[in-house]
């Protein structure tokens, strides 16, 4: 075994430029792959964040008395899929509106308090499953059935926005999967080709090994290890770069993105995914070498 490892390293060294070429090809492919994985992870996270932020606003009819609120809230809370509901009275609504408009809004909203308040009372409702938000909204509207006048004046949950967002995230996921698969395949063929060239250059050696009675397994080992070494080096480099760069990116952007209420996927989580790339690099190397060696070992 020691001999095989020594031979493998010697051969990586001896085939200098070829080894360099195959390491680079794996490294570049895996780097692109890694960038895509990091991107996909973050798009996914962003989509999930936005999805979970989605909430239903149920505006109440003016005819609804304050004494009916608790009863109505209980009815809403007992709807399947509702996580939580908060009552926002029109006075609170006005305060929130003033806050969000700031100084400029003060003049605009002058004289709109008290009995002149144009805002309706409302419930803000969070749901368990953002994808089923329209179903839940329908159920809330159904509370109107058989009641006159309708207690719920309108429900609003940005239906179209949510639907489009779901479609976009779905498409991004598919594109990422296809690209990732394609790049992985390309790297595999690159490494297979490189090792093939290595073997062709050493056919004479293989012929002599067979002549003096080496078993096929014995001949295969160094090439197998050579592929593994190339794959390992070729994957550790991009993974190290990506892991470091992502850590820096998170640290640098934390403050600015925080203001936009966007949070990147935590570094540790990205690293644990990137580690898989090393395994993939190893696999690519080993698979590539076995693929090429098999052809040359037929007597």
């Amino acid at each position, binding site marked *: 075994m020691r*001999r095989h490892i020594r031979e493998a390293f010697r051969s990586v060294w001896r085939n200098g430029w070829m080894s360099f070429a195959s390491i680079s090809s794996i490294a570049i492919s895996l780097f692109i792959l890694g960038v895509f994985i990091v991107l996909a992870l973050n798009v996914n996270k962003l989509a999930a964040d936005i999805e979970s932020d989605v909430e239903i606003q149920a505006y109440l009819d003016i005819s609804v008395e304050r004494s009916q609120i608790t009863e109505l809230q209980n009815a809403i809370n007992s709807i399947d899929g509702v996580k939580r509901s908060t009552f926002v009275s029109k006075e609170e609504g006005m305060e929130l509106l003033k806050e969000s408009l700031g100084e400029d809004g003060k003049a605009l909203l002058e004289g709109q308090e008290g009995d002149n308040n144009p805002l309706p009372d409302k419930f803000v409702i969070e749901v368990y499953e953002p994808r089923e938000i329209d179903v839940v909204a329908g159920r809330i509207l159904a509370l109107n059935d058989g009641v006159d006048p309708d207690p719920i004046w309108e429900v609003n949950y940005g239906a179209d926005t949510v639907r489009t967002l779901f479609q976009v995230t779905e498409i991004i996921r598919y594109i990422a999967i296809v690209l990732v698969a394609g790049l992985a395949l390309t790297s595999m063929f690159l490494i297979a080709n490189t090792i093939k060239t290595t073997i062709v250059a050493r056919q*004479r050696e293989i*012929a*002599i090994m*067979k*002549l*003096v*009675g080496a*078993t*096929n397994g014995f001949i295969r080992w160094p090439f197998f290890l050579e592929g593994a070494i190339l794959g390992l080096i070729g994957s550790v480099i991009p993974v190290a770069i990506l892991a470091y760069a992502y850590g820096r990116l998170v640290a640098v952007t934390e403050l600015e993105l925080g203001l936009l209420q966007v949070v990147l996927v935590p570094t540790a989580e990205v690293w644990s995914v990137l580690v898989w790339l090393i395994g993939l690099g190893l696999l690519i190397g080993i698979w590539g070498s076995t693929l090429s060696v098999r052809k040359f070992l037929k007597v």
Partner: protein
Amino acid sequence: MQDVHKTYPDGGQALRGVNVRIERNEFVYIVGPSGAGKSTFMKLIYREERPTKGSIFVNGFNLEKLKQRKIPFVRRNIGVVFQDFRLLPKMTAYENIAFAMEVIEAPSRVIKKRTQEVLELVNLKDKGNAYPNQLSGGEQQRVAIARAIVNNPAVIVADEPTGNLDPDTSWDIMRLLEEINFRGTTIVMATHNKEIVNTMRKRVIAIESGLIVRDQYRGEYGYED
């Protein structure tokens, strides 16, 4: 060999029914015109080619029934020497010889000892660290012979081992082969060298057009060059 035929895929008939028995510890010359089937005869012994028909036994192995997996183990009992030496250019003389033992996974202590031993036997003790391109043709062939015998094979198959060497060097090689033969190794050697065959008298098998036309102990070369 019993009734051995060999037809190549391109239709060329190399051997057309060869029957021969070579005993342990014999020294045999295979002679005959180029293309008569000498090389095929040699290749069949170390199982680089398979007969189209007939059967071959080497050291008690039936090569015909031999499983693919077992071929390496038969070859370990056969040392092969070529006209063009076939040394690995990136390895020293010592490494080229040790290589044959590494390949059969001998312990490294044994490899060291035995490699030194054969280097001495072929009289190249001081050239162990030289690369093939730093050695003369005769020296390279001696390294090749050392590699062939390092694993103590029962048979040496030599395909025109003196073909690329000048007469003096050729005699060195022949004396070496004879010495190896004295130590108990069977030697089968294909050659075009009339002087060697006629001087160092051994069994001579002549092959022409794929058939054995003569098999004579202490025979002569029998062809005019």
